[in-house]
């Protein structure tokens, strides 16, 4: 097979708090064509929409600067193009940051392609009669809606790359589509070429959680050992023009890429294996199998696909009250009994104060948080009581942690290490929107 018939697509991040350094290892050790950063969890855009309301220059993924700074010189020097959803709720601002980083590093003017149109909040407001996939009408959460973003498909990534941009930046784009878009562009695959679409979506699905393919979320000492986990290498796919798909990781990197790691990741977040719905096609992994004849090299076979649906999934973020929580620890004789007494007092206090949470949860945690190895004896030696409550109003949520901390002085004997937290809940529900209601645009800009 001619070298030019193979594209290499790597993953530089698989979630917002992913490690920074593996991306640099990939671009320096592997002749990649594309490096993809996937950094948006379900509710990230909702949170970043609120950030943007407070500060008009904010709203993109907080790790953008660190990730781009670490790889941009190497990517520009080697002609590796970057694709990412780190634009979150403000792709235009993220693109500007990327171009400014290029200038500050003394690189040639950076070309960015910004993908817009995933934000469909204005469209939903015109269609309150839509029904959420969870069953209730959209109207029921519309007054509290913070964000609504359609999961765009690989076509926008393909079109972004077609502009010649060094870096393609969007907000909500379906995770596997970020990778498939590189292949549509690089190989010229057509959307109705279902065997190739299947291979590309499978590549994206396996790569989108980075180290979860190379030994992360896998190790179990003595049963499933993974070498050198402090230096896990992030994976990349070698994809031939005709669709052959081989997964690899950088030479000399830590971790493990095997049939077993690929099997676990294949089924990760999949429900019906025969019908994994993406914006680009319906992927069928029910016949997928893996072959490995060399360490850390796995070929993926048997992916199939059916044509895409007429709708796009939309994630609707909305304000859903507050969660308050607190923790306090008890040790030694009667630790459990005193923790249980504290729980009873805290719940009674909330009641006495007339504060009612929608839901309260009590957890008993403990091993060695208080007195080190002393925790190895006792029945149990220590208990850390955690009480969490959700309420529509902040005051009630704050009271949960307050009453836990009050146990230091007002509770059972020997309560220590009290802490409390409160945070706003940004919940997410989904709906399906006809594709023709979603209009996307791509904006090419160069230099800072």
């Amino acid at each position, binding site marked *: 097979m001619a070298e030019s018939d193979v594209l290499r697509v790597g993953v530089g991040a698989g979630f917002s708090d992913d490690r920074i350094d593996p991306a640099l290892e990939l671009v320096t050790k592997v002749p990649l064509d594309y490096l993809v950063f996937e950094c948006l969890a379900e509710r990230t855009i909702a949170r970043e929409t609120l950030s943007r309301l407070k500060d008009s220059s904010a709203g993109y993924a907080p790790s953008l600067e660190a990730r781009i700074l670490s790889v941009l010189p190497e990517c520009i020097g080697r002609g590796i193009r970057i694709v990412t959803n780190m634009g979150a709720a403000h792709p235009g601002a993220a693109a500007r940051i990327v171009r400014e980083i290029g200038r500050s590093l003394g690189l040639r003017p950076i070309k960015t392609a910004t993908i817009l149109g995933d934000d469909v909040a204005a469209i939903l407001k015109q269609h309150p009669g839509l029904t959420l996939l969870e069953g209730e009408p959209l109207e029921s959460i519309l007054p509290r809606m913070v964000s609504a973003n359609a999961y765009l498909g690989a076509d926008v990534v393909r079109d972004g790359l077609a502009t010649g941009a060094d870096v393609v930046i969007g907000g909500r784009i379906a995770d596997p589509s970020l990778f498939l878009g590189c292949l549509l562009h690089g190989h010229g695959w057509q959307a109705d070429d279902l065997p190739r679409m299947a291979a590309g979506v499978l590549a994206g699905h396996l790569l989108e959680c980075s180290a979860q393919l190379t030994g992360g979320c896998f190790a179990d000492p003595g049963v499933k050992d993974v070498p050198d986990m402090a230096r896990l290498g992030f994976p990349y796919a070698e994809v031939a023009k005709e669709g052959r798909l081989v997964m690899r990781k950088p030479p000399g990197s830590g971790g493990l890429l095997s049939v077993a790691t690929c099997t676990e990741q294949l089924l990760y977040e999949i*429900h019906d294996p025969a019908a994994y719905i993406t914006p680009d096609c319906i992927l069928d992994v*029910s016949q997928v199998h893996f072959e490995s004849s060399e360490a850390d090299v796995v070929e993926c076979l048997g992916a199939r696909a059916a044509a895409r649906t007429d709708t796009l999934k939309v994630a609707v973020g909305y304000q859903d009250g507050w*969660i308050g929580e607190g923790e306090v620890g008890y040790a030694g004789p009667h630790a459990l009994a005193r923790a249980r007494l504290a729980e009873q007092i805290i719940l009674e206090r909330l009641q006495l104060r007339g504060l009612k949470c929608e839901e309260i949860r009590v957890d008993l945690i403990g091993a060695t948080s208080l007195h080190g190895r002393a925790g190895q004896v006792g029945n149990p030696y220590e208990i850390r009581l955690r009480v969490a409550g959700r309420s529509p109003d902040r005051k009630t949520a704050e009271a949960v942690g307050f009453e836990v901390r009050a146990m230091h002085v007002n509770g059972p004997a020997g309560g220590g290490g009290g802490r409390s937290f409160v945070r706003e809940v940004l919940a997410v529900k989904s709906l399906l929107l006809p594709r023709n209601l979603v209009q996307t645009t791509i904006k090419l800009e160069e230099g800072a």
Partner: protein
Amino acid sequence: MRRVRLHRIAHARAGDKGDTSNISVIAYSESSWNVLLTQLTADHVARAFSDLTSEPIRRYELPQLRALNFVIPGALNGGVTRSLALDAHGKSLSYLMLNIEISIPEETP
């Protein structure tokens, strides 16, 4: 036959979508795959997860991978965005699954 934990013959990974957890269970060997197929029924799993959910559990079979995929609705306390649980994603649920007891033949190593 002897009773062992599923952890002895299989590995697993949990994922989340909304309020639904999915957990793959993958047998280490062909003989263990047969044990999974016959013993690790949706009902058996439902009993192990009864503290977390009472909704019906679906089981999918992928024999070429010696894997089962369980889809467990309602197991995530309302989903990661509003759950009060410490492990809101249910990442640790794979080991609740592997804690399930099954029977294996005496001669199994």
